[in-house]
């Protein structure tokens, strides 16, 4: 399902479909089949649209929100700044104004 092979196929199918639409298709189709062929692309687009929408909603809903992580991070930053083992790093990198 390489996009590079899918694209020429799609273009080929589109050209065939346009031929049917414009009545230029060499083989004469029974009217039911003719109508079917004309509507299939629109059906395809609608189905694809709904699939994309539901997939996107599913992904957004499942993207876990972790507000706790932000709180824990703030806490850990405070803790490590006060940690005697790393105090030399923070002492050395604080400006004389004590920011």
């Amino acid at each position, binding site marked *: *399902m390489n*996009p*590079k092979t899918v694209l020429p196929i799609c273009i080929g199918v589109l050209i065939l479909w346009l031929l049917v639409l414009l009545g230029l298709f060499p083989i004469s189709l029974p009217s039911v089949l003719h109508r079917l062929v004309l509507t299939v692309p629109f059906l395809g687009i609608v189905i694809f649209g709904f699939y*994309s929408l539901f*997939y*996107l909603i599913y*992904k*957004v809903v*499942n*993207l*876990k*929100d*972790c*507000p*706790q*992580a*932000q709180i824990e*991070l703030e806490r*850990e*930053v405070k803790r*490590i*700044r006060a*940690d005697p*083992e*790393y105090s*030399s*790093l*923070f002492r*050395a*990198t604080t*400006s004389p104004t004590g920011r």
Partner: protein
Amino acid sequence: MSKSPFYSILLPTYNERDNLPVVVAMIEQYLRDIPHEIIIIDDNSPDGTQEVATALQHQLGPERIILKPRSGKLGLGSAYIHGSQYARGDFLIIMDVDLSHHPRYIPTFIERQREGDYDIVIGSRYLPGGGVAGWNLKRKIISCGANYVTQLLLRPPISDVTGSFRLYRKSHFDRLVSQCTSKGYVFQMEMIVRAVNANLRIAEVPIIFVDRIYGESKLGGQEIALFAKGVLQLTFLE
């Protein structure tokens, strides 16, 4: 018993004087027993980040902290290339310095790499166990949308293609990064696409991303257009 691998952590910085010592302290804490070095690539930050980096080097030594500053903001891809030149590690770890990427995950990356001898380990926000903090709905929709479009067109077997918290085998990283031409989010995607095309072994671990950029996200129409262009270009990559 083979030699223990050495890990180089690349930290491109711009205006991170407050976060840099915290990130370094955390790396030292979580990688206490893991041989590593930290390469700080500062793009001439006006807030004095480079002075902070120099002070950190005085404290931890030039074997642990390597400074490779640059004259200006020259882009992330080139910062990685620049830093990697001096890296002695078998593996590189790239991450953000604003604390959106927590160093506590680094041992997880290392462990995962070892499990399957992977070439790349990606931190994913979308895997079970992963997530985000501080994103509003709009941001979530944009991120999920971007990942969906990318998966549709590029079909990489990866859940998070724009994330920038990753571990790379150095030899492959150097080759991939030299081929990449895009910037920003698309650069991260391009690395993955090229890696997949080269049949590299890629694994993912869940991470929680804490958004540190408060206020309006800089994702406007122009960024979206650039992203669309980038994805289309990547789709037709050789």
